[in-house]
């Protein structure tokens, strides 16, 4: 089991551009969450997907959107990139939406906006 995999590992974008990040959850997990981790900060919850629907959302603008596919993999899209969007983006999967289970994290995608 490869665990949670994210791609790409690093990305450089220009202000105003759009970006798509990808995540494959751990085998057997159907719920995917996305977190943003700015330098020197803890991860901040962006949103969560279950059964191809957004179930919870953190305090992030509509420029941040996502998608979940039938195979449980997920995408995070950010439009109109700002310099402040530069961060490590983490994907986490859990086996069940309602249970307080261990979250398994990917290695993250380092996004740099210039």
């Amino acid at each position, binding site marked *: 089991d490869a*665990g*949670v995999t994210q791609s790409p590992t690093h990305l450089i974008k220009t202000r105003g551009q759009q970006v798509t990040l990808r995540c494959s959850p751990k085998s057997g997990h159907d*719920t995917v*969450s996305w*977190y943003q981790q700015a330098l*020197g*900060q*803890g*991860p*901040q*919850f962006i949103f*969560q997907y279950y059964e191809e629907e957004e179930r*919870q959302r*953190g305090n992030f603008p509509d420029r941040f959107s996502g998608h979940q596919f039938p195979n449980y993999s997920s995408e995070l899209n950010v439009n109109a990139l700002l310099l402040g969007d530069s961060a490590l983006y*983490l994907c*986490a999967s*859990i086996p*069940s*939406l*309602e*249970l*307080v*289970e*261990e*979250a*398994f*994290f*990917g*290695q*993250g995608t380092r996004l740099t906006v210039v």
Partner: protein
Amino acid sequence: AQRVTQPEKLLSVFKGAPVELKCNYSYSGSPELFWYVQYSRQRLQLLLRHISRESIKGFTADLNKGETSFHLKKPFAQEEDSAMYYCALSEGWGTGTASKLTFGTGTRLQVTL
């Protein structure tokens, strides 16, 4: 809204010394508390959770609801304990938001010889 506070950005201790990483939280309900750890060049991973009451790698953490704290302790620090430690809170089963984690800003533990 829930909040997790880790007051120390860096904690430096000698090998063999006791370790205490502080975590305080604010939440009106009954939270689930976790400690996640990130070793150098590795992904964030669960160290322990209060509900399991386990001791992992010699670390323990007790949930003190009166003081709203969940401090992480280890009696004798080892070099391999050097890492970034994050305290996290979940709103608990049945709230509809059980799987969302709120993290603190993290404490870097540095164990020196």
